[in-house]
């Protein structure tokens, strides 16, 4: 099982990556949005959003979904940052996972947008990458891990 970062630790991934071909996805499989929409039972599901797929269809099921993966085909495409915040602001409490080609220098921002898990590319040195999670200890803005903006804490 591939290694990844979850809640600040290096762990093994128990979920299976998206398989667009599968007509009946395996249990523990992360679903594409289409597959997920076709699934009647949403409880315990995992679904992956691509750039251009805002999280709106998930809003009514946030309590039952276990995992939302947001794909970054290219690390400079920042749509996923907004998707994550929208999910968090609407109360999603499951695992919010970044997948695809993003880089360790983005981990801190991603975490602040609400991502809790990071499936970095294979080449990434995960223990070195852990350091980037904590690049900053203070921030101006409110975020997923600090609901008060600095101006309410000064």
């Amino acid at each position, binding site marked *: 099982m591939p290694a990844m970062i979850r809640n600040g630790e290096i762990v093994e991934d128990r979920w299976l990556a998206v398989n667009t071909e599968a007509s009946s996805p395996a249990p523990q499989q992360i679903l594409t949005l289409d597959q997920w929409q076709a699934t009647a039972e949403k409880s315990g599901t995992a679904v992956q959003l691509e750039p251009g797929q805002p999280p709106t269809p998930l809003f009514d099921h946030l309590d039952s979904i276990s995992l939302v993966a947001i794909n970054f085909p290219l*690390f400079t495409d920042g749509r996923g940052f907004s998707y994550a915040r929208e999910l968090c*602001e609407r109360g999603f409490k499951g695992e919010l996972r970044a997948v695809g080609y993003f880089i360790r*220098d983005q981990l801190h*921002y991603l975490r602040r*947008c609400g991502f809790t898990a990071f499936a970095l590319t294979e080449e990434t040195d995960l223990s070195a990458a852990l350091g980037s999670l904590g690049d900053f*200890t203070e921030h101006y803005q409110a975020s997923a891990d600090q609901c008060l903006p600095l*101006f309410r804490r000064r």
Partner: protein
Amino acid sequence: MYVYDKYDQQIIDERVNQFRDQTRRFINGSLPEAEFLPLRLQNGLYVQRLAPMLRIAVPYGLLNSTQLRKLADITRRFDKGYAHISTRQNIQLNWPQLEEVPDILAELATVQMHAIQTSGNCIRNTTTDQYAGVAIDELTDPRPYCEIIRQWSTLHPEFAFLPRKFKIAVCASTGDRAALYNHDVGVEVRVSDQGAIGFRVLAGGGLGRTPMIGAVICEWLDEPHLLTYLEAILRVYNQRGRRDNKYKARIKILVKAMGVDAFREAVAQEWRAIKDGLNTLTNAEIERAKSFFNPPQYLDVDTASAQSALREQCRNNPTFSNWVARNTLDHKVDGYQIVNISLKATGYAPGDITDAQIELVADLADRYAFGEVRSTHEQNLVLADVHQPDLYPVWQALQAAGLATPNIGYLSDLICCPGGDYCSLANAKSLPVAEAIQARFSDLDYLYDLGPIDLNISGCMNACGHHHIGHIGILGVDKKGQEFYQVCLGGNQGKDASIGKILGPSFSQQDIPDIIEQILSIYLQLRRPEESFLDTYRRVGIDPFKERVYAGDD
């Protein structure tokens, strides 16, 4: 001006450390070039034609003398002893070494400066009126709002990988000196009849390849909602802005494609989810921001005697008198004057300033202007609060340092990007064109007779020299590997902003001074009494200029 507390300091110190580590990994090969690129850009570091260029942030154009001295020191130790004021009120170093940039940033951090988000596809330095706080036509001081926006936008986790760069301007005066209508977002601070503060919010303005005038998307936004509303705009843009073509990625293209009404509605929808949340500004925060911009301790002067003394000095020295008339402005406090420091002496690149000049300006600021200086988008500097009896010694010092060219607002006070001499994106050089124009039109009486003219030069479509909004705009273009220049007329910034129209086929570099001279002489022939160049152009249109400039061509 705003002063950092421990939080601000900690944030920029941590940014220096982060960038130091990124630079180290880039140099040792563990951070690939393509991944380092957006990271360094977000820290103002370009790799240019000859050397890297580092753009240092000057938040809304405010500097103090300590910062200036540090900058002078940095230009000596890490660069070639000069710096450049950009059209976004920032300061650029043209010759730093990549491996030394973290050290430069660490030096800057000691004087509460940084290079955060001066480039890259993120929210850039917020700009405002260079005369904020001292202008006669000001409704209220825009700088507290600039500072609030600065903090909110600095290292914002959600908006660091936008489709394209994003620029916000704030203005609070009746005349718009911040080009609100040409920004991704323009925030016009307003005061209601009851004295309440609110904002008119514009979106979708811009220059570049597809110049556009911003549209009003919110006529009145109550003061506490400033940040949540901006956040909603950014969210719509971040999710829906085009990412497939960098020339179509700015918010102006999105606003146009969606239509203003649909865009406004999309923003409203995002806003509903976050409005009244914890990002809503508190009174305490607004008061805190305002407390940094209280007026300085102005001297109570006997205005009448100060003015008569000034008149006397002017009578005795026509050069001084002319400088007062051209380069200084009335201040909202009697007995004070706003002083523009011209960085447009002929023979020097527009906006360039040497280390010694920077130190001189710092000294003058300490002695005569409460220790503060502003940078302007016209690439000049300003001493905003000079006591009238001090004008004479200030002028003498500036004059001796080549900083008193009496041309503010006139043709030779032109705006010019670094162009092909420095910039790797350039189609053509811009500095030699600027110099040739300044050399041709050095006769001040002729310039004064022409009246105020904005002449703006960009070395390529990216329009850093804002050529579209110059009354006369010059754009470098590439024609089969040769440098040519397109001329446009009739652009303007301000509340009646307009985009210049292209005159016709482009010209070679050596022809430009002649062409400009022709255009000016057509204006002089056609103008009615009291008409500025822009007035005449707006009355007669482009045709008379076109016909006569190209008359010999066929």
